[in-house]
């Protein structure tokens, strides 16, 4: 009897859940904010919509001073009537003029992958932490344009409220957000951007169109010119100032796998593992030291005499979604370390690339890195 009841309860649970799922799928058809059941492959999409070299050259060569009537559909114009909301055309004008700071309200890991060129990350859930780190670079009288993924995303409103509470007066929301900006082929950057836009990058831009003026290294102002070779030669690291508009946009210190590997090969860097210590012990980047976010103070006290504050430190965590590297980088900067970079893609990408690692659980074939 009891078994029958248990079975009937489980059966009804399955029926209710199944019905709810079915209803959800039906609702998705009529939902104005519906999403596709098949996940989009963003990189391919970027390649498809990115304008070619000739298209970039066709863009206006000077920044129009007078406001131009937008060619966007009427719906977007209606939204733009509200002072706070701006559409793509206006956003691009502000971008070209270089008078606005773009704020990415999406989760930080999405920002690290791809974002509007020069944007800073202030995600809604980690706003306080991120704001504390960059508040000195933000001018409260400046214009801030906040964007999220699309019109369905409300995080830009939350971030706008947070900024208002902190005394920022001139805030606008780019409601169509990242998706429309990206689809329009406007300048973007991030650790995953390079592979997507490389095929359409002009070899040597001659005309200084607005789109080309802001073309600079994806995230990092430093560029390592020599290719990676198996020789022991140390690559020459050349400081290359980005040729950008005069926007008051703070740069972040994130580097990608390629740059990290070059620093690693140069041997003039200290790798800091921000993951929990027991994970570090098992496997970590060859030569890395452990400064986990949770036990930072204790570990730092034990090794602070060995750490030189002028050296270059690259902090990494498990992957793009792991924020511990950001915490540890912040702790190091608070203690006077001037040259701290974050390898955002972190351990997963390093390990996946087969680069040198060490640790208690590393097998013979794993550690070579060749």
């Amino acid at each position: 009897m009891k078994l029958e009841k248990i079975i009937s309860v489980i059966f009804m649970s399955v029926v209710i859940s199944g019905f709810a799922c079915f209803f959800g799928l039906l609702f998705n058809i009529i939902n104005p904010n519906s999403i596709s059941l098949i996940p989009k492959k963003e990189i391919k999409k970027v390649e498809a919509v990115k304008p070619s070299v000739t298209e970039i050259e066709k863009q206006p060569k000077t920044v129009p001073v007078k406001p131009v009537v937008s060619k966007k559909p009427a719906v977007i114009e209606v939204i733009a009537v509200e002072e706070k909301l701006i559409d793509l055309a206006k956003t691009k004008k502000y971008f070209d003029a270089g008078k606005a700071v773009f704020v990415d309200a999406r989760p930080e890991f999405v920002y690290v992958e791809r974002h509007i060129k020069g944007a800073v990350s202030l995600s809604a859930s980690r706003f306080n932490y991120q704001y504390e780190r960059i508040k000195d670079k933000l001018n409260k009288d400046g214009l801030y344009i906040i964007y999220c993924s699309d019109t369905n995303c409300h995080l830009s409103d939350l971030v706008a409220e947070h900024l208002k509470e902190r005394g920022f007066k001139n805030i606008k929301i780019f409601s169509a957000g990242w998706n429309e900006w990206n689809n329009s082929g406007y300048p973007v950057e991030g650790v995953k951007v390079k592979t997507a836009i490389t095929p359409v990058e002009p070899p040597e831009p001659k005309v200084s169109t607005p789109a080309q003026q802001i073309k600079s290294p994806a995230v990092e102002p430093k560029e390592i010119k020599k290719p990676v070779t198996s020789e022991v030669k140390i690559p020459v690291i050349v400081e290359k100032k980005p040729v950008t508009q005069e926007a008051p946009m703070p740069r972040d210190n994130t580097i990608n796998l390629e740059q990290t590997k070059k620093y690693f090969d140069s041997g003039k860097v200290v790798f800091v593992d921000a993951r929990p210590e027991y994970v570090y012990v098992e496997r970590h980047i060859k030569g890395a030291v452990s400064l986990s976010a949770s036990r930072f103070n204790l570990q730092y006290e034990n090794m602070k005499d060995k750490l030189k504050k002028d050296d270059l430190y690259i902090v990494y965590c498990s992957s793009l979604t792991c924020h511990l590297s950001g915490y540890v980088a912040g702790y190091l900067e608070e203690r006077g370390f001037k040259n701290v970079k974050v390898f955002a893609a972190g351990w997963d990408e390093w390990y996946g690339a087969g680069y040198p690692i060490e640790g208690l659980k590393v097998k013979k074939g794993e550690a070579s890195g060749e």
Partner: protein
Amino acid sequence: MNKSIFSNEKLLLVLRLIMGVVFILASIDKILSPSMFALILKEYKIIPDIFIPLVAITLPWVEFFIGVLMIANLFTQSCALVMIGLNLGYLTGIILNLIWGLVHECGCFTIFGFNEPIGGFSIVRDIVFILLCLPPLIYGTNEIKLEKEKTKQILPS
């Protein structure tokens, strides 16, 4: 568990109302903007990318339906079972992510702009929700009340 306390009708009513409202509130924002929920699900790195849109579309509706049914006292035990299952899933996801060192948006209650990162609070909250679901699961009823009254009327004769 002391049966006399946890089988109390009033207590069960209060627990049903609490859990029903909690699940409905948790679902509404996700139903309205599944794209945002999909982004948060992706952060958990537990569900394969190909299934994320499907889960983002259906999961909020499961939360909504069991919340409504719980309040209406329909299939209470089944709803409580689903609630416990969902909370166990969320709990596993949060704990795994914290172990992996991933701190990101919880995606639990995005309504009213309440958006917190995963952490100890999320874990404690989910455990409390599971505990609150236990009395309705054990002492609740899975029968429709009208039928129950009919059987009660028939029995004396």
